[in-house]
């Protein structure tokens, strides 16, 4: 049972990435990325990382993808191309064929049982692995935390500097 479920999640992960990669209009592309994030969450949950999956949902679907969908307004097409229209469907079929050929190349029979993930999947354990890892980041991994916080602060400066004073150059 678990094998089929994880097989479904991994397949959905690949298929929704095909939906992003086959160059639809940005509206549909960001929808595809939401699907990728959802399936990725399911994959991570399936191997026991519930906290990481929660973070992924909160950051991706909750914050970043909203911004992406919002800025899709900048890229509005008059005639948006979804996955049904010609070029996009052709690319999607091409990518799908490529993935199938590659999976046929890498397929081995003994991996049929390995679709299920390893890791500790005792359901209601109070001390799960990923929560321990995150608490490790706050205790011993302090320098890494400082570095990434510094990078986020730097990004604030970067974004302000890039979008500031655009009246100075060619001005629209």
């Amino acid at each position, binding site marked *: 049972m678990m094998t089929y479920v994880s097989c479904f999640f991994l397949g959905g992960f690949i298929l929704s990435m095909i939906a992003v990669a086959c160059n639809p209009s940005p509206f549909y592309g960001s929808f595809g990325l939401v699907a990728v994030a959802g399936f990725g969450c399911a994959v991570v949950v399936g191997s026991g990382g519930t906290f990481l999956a929660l973070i992924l949902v909160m*950051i991706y679907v909750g914050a970043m993808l909203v911004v*992406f969908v919002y800025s899709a307004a900048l890229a509005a097409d008059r005639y948006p191309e979804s996955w049904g229209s010609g070029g996009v469907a052709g690319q999607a079929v091409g990518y799908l064929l490529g993935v199938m050929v590659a999976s046929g190349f890498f397929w081995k029979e003994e991996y049929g049982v390995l679709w299920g993930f390893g890791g500790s999947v005792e359901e209601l354990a109070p001390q799960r*692995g990923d929560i321990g890892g995150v608490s490790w980041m706050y205790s011993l991994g302090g320098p890494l935390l400082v570095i990434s916080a510094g990078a986020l602060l730097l990004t604030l400066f970067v974004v302000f500097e*890039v*979008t500031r004073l655009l009246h100075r150059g060619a001005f629209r």
Partner: protein
Amino acid sequence: MTPPHFAFSATFILALTGLVFHRTHLLSALLCLEGMMLSLFVALSLWALQLDITSFLASPLLLLAFSACEASTGLALLAATARTHGSDRLQSLNLLQC
């Protein structure tokens, strides 16, 4: 190559080819970039979860922080490009070609 390994490699390479080959909009390119980072996130967390390395399980969060940095910088550049070039089509970025 186990199935999770194949899955994240396939998604990463799909997003990479989607980014490299024909893109109409800059925003679609940024979406592909985010897809790459997302597959890297899944790969990193699956690796640490399968081998049960507790001290490594914080690194997906760091990866996510950095990909948020990249995404916001890309969106700022998207806004700047839309202002200076009038649209975000990648074909209009042709001022510097040889």
